[in-house]
């Protein structure tokens, strides 16, 4: 592990046996896991390059248990790391050696389906896909669809403000969540929002969403569901130049067309995906766009014609239009399998996640190519072209000394490039530990201080998921007084990672 985490509290570690016993009194039976072997599955999330066994794993089943566990930890100064399904790609659920890992996996019940109000009330451990499956019989679905939707939990989606290919048209998690039951670090249980379209007062749901488990633990969620469009069809369009594909994306949006999804892959990704799933992707192109249009059949037919004409105007070399659901699924199959497909052509890879303005796409790709040469590492690009969210996959071999460090440096350079082009460090994977040290590249000390003051409003002792998102530890009382001006660093004696 090359990244520093907060120093462990030896006094807490010394009391481990007593803490485990106390937690067992709150969560009986198999709800507390304390043996090293049984805790192994929890020592990382999907950012597996970083691993750390937790002090103890607690798997509560009720809100009351969550509340009591948090209150106990609050009263005893014990850190807590919340975890959903563990599919985070940024280390958001990486344990700490002296912290309780609080798994919400047993919160698996959909509590209510309310078609009249077009909402589902669910527990946080329910998977994203299970929500859509539960309402599919009535023609409804839950719109945000992260690629991990078969495994990722809705609670984790809230923590990370997850997205997916439908986000361009239907928004991210934050645009589709109406309320939650939230347990604060103090153990206090609050209800934020609900079935009404807006909540009273400040938009607390908006700030909880995407807060990466640093503000509270969600034990119930109310999400919006939508009626499925009448139909969806997809185009698969190839280009001999990446720039032409980028231009096509810009022209589609400029023409006032908002596709249900608009994804791009570059040559290495196309070849890897085609070898993996035989989707019929053209292998003689530099970039492939998959553009899905949804709505009424008449609308989709018309928009397909318009998009096809735009693509031709941009110099597309191939264009196939799905004629059936099976064919549409096939177009997507390669894109959805792109990550595992690339895993077959390289021993290891890092999946990056930055966003840029759509118009900056050619410049970003050119820079990534330069960096690839500089570091001597291959890269395959898969991205949500419609909203500028890049996923460069940096290929390396962890068994070759120094390659992982090179890959990480390459990734950091890509993210810095995203910010310099007017974009951001992360579009959907979160900051976690992965991009923590890059936060000052996007935010000033004053920006970060304001975010940390907000954290203090929820968790004044800083016990919930410390070491994530922010590169510098601050004590709340000091943040309340400090004014940061002229870039001077306050309290240089405070611990920094």
């Amino acid at each position, binding site marked *: 592990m090359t990244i520093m985490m907060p120093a462990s509290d030896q006094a807490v570690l010394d009391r481990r046996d007593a803490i485990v016993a106390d937690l067992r009194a709150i969560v009986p039976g198999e709800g507390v896991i304390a043996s090293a072997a049984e805790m192994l599955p929890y020592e990382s999330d999907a950012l597996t390059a970083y691993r750390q066994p937790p002090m103890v794993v607690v798997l509560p089943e009720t809100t009351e248990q969550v509340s009591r566990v948090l209150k106990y930890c609050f009263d005893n100064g014990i850190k807590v790391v919340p975890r959903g399904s563990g599919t985070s790609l940024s280390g958001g659920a990486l344990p700490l050696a002296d912290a309780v890992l609080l798994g919400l996996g047993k919160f698996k019940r959909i509590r209510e389906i309310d078609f009249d109000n*077009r909402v589902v009330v669910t527990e946080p451990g329910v998977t994203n896909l299970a929500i859509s499956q539960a309402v599919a019989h009535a023609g409804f679905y839950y719109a945000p669809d992260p690629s991990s939707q078969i495994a990722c939990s809705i609670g984790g989606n809230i923590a990370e403000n997850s997205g997916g290919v439908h*986000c361009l048209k239907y928004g991210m998690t934050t645009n589709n969540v109406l309320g939650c039951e939230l347990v604060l670090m103090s153990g*206090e249980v*609050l209800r934020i929002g*609900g*079935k009404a*379209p807006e909540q009273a007062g400040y938009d607390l749901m908006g700030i909880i969403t995407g807060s990466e488990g640093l503000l509270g633990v969600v034990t119930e969620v109310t999400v919006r569901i939508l009626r499925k469009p009448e139909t969806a069809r997809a185009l698969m369009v190839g280009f001999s130049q990446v720039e032409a594909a980028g231009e096509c994306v810009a022209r589609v949006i400029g023409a006032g067309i*908002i596709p249900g999804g608009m994804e791009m892959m570059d040559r290495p990704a196309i070849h890897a995906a085609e070898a993996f799933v035989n989707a019929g992707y053209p292998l003689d192109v530099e970039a492939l766009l998959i553009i899905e249009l949804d709505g009424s059949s008449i609308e989709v037919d018309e928009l397909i014609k318009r998009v096809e004409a735009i693509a031709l105007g941009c110099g597309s070399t191939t264009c196939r239009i799905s004629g059936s659901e099976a064919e549409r699924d096939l177009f997507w199959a390669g894109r959805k399998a792109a990550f595992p497909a690339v895993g077959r052509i390289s021993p290891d890879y890092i999946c990056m996640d930055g*966003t840029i303005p759509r118009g900056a796409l050619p410049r970003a790709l050119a820079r990534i190519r330069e960096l690839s040469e500089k570091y001597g590492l291959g890269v395959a690009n898969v991205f949500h072209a419609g909203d500028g969210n890049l996923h460069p996959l940096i290929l390396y071999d962890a068994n070759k000394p120094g390659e992982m460090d090179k890959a990480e440096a390459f990734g950091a350079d890509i993210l810095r490039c995203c910010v310099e082009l007017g974009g951001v460090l*992360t579009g959907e994977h979160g900051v976690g530990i992965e991009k923590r040290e890059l936060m000052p590249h996007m935010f000033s000390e004053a920006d970060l201080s304001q975010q940390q003051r907000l954290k203090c409003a929820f968790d004044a002792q800083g016990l919930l998921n410390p070491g994530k998102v922010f590169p510098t530890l601050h004590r709340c009382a000091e943040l309340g007084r400090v004014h940061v001006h002229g870039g001077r660093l306050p309290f240089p004696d405070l611990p920094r990672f």
Partner: protein
Amino acid sequence: MDTLKAGDAADVEDAVRAAVAGDQPLEIIGHGSKRSIGHAMTTDAVLDVSALNAVTCYEPHELIITVQAGAPLDEVVSLLDSRNQEFAFEPMDTAALLGVRSGRGTIGGMIGAGLAGPRRIKAGGVRDHLLGAHAVSGFGDGFKAGGRVVKNVTGYDLCKLLAGSWGTLAVMTEVTLKVMPKAEAERTLVLRGLDDVTANRAMTAALGSPYDVSGAAHMSRTALEAARGALAVLASTGQAATLLRLEGIAASVAHRGAALAAHLAPFGAGELVEGAESAALWCDVRDVAPFAADGPLGGWPVWRIVCPPASGGAFGQALARETGGEVIYDWAGGLLWAALPSSVDVVDAYAASLRRRLAPLGGHATLLRAGEELRRTVDVFHPQAKGVAALAERVRRSFDPGSILNRGRLTRTPIS
């Protein structure tokens, strides 16, 4: 009272820092068009940001616009219109409802108030379209939130808090908003003569259909008669009207209009209103034209009630019956505008009872239009549960510990 006119963001920082140093709270205004909303402020000076009115960057192909917070809303809307784009959430123009001069209101005020129009049911609210902001906290520190791209999960989404915060967290100086292409065509299906509860069911059925309804509103005959513009035309038949809007490319709108009419046939035969005539109807719905300050119901206090959409009809119908007031419905029943006739004492009683009855539904009510005397008596903004209110207050203090910004606007309870 002193007025500090900021020329740029640095002026705003200086003004807030001076106010912090002297513990002199500031009222933040753009055009001041929404000053009559909320409680009377206990501020010593006015910080006017209307001179921060430039459009910094408009990139139609990126679907974003960056503007200073004091930019006039109508000018920005005109600029977007010139490129056939718009704010998809249909920002409400409060001029008619509050009786202020038309065309007033700034982008900052639009965000601070967070009042979205009919398309909120499809496109989301103001909070869903604010991508980034530069603002000055109550510490006097300029800070940045969010960015200028749609997909962004870098750090806390502070923009969500700024939207609808009524200027109590920070003074916005520049914001980036998502814009969307305007629909090529629109068509409104009008159902006639439904009572509020039945209309609510019709709207629920419409929103549960695959026809992509982008507006669902209902109003009684008397409400239609109280409006002067496009809605008044609908009053000619002497019946209530339920409006369902479809937008998109022309062929699709025609197709879906027919399909939706067939889907809702159990509620009666609908008539179709198209193009500019349809657009005018929805402007009136958005701006609550039946309750215009210079109209027949202009003297009545007006509540803005948000509740689970399928509950709206029954709640509103009971409220109107018991009070003799008038209720109109937007957001398929999720947004009720209620004009209730009465004295201060009676409204005080209404406030308690309507909020009590909203509680089990998970709804909330804001007294959006009322005289000063009434606003001193009644909680304008919906009181929150104790724990949530305490958290919200801690959140507020994390931005503005000295309560320098718009002190007193949100609550009648003095901040200690």
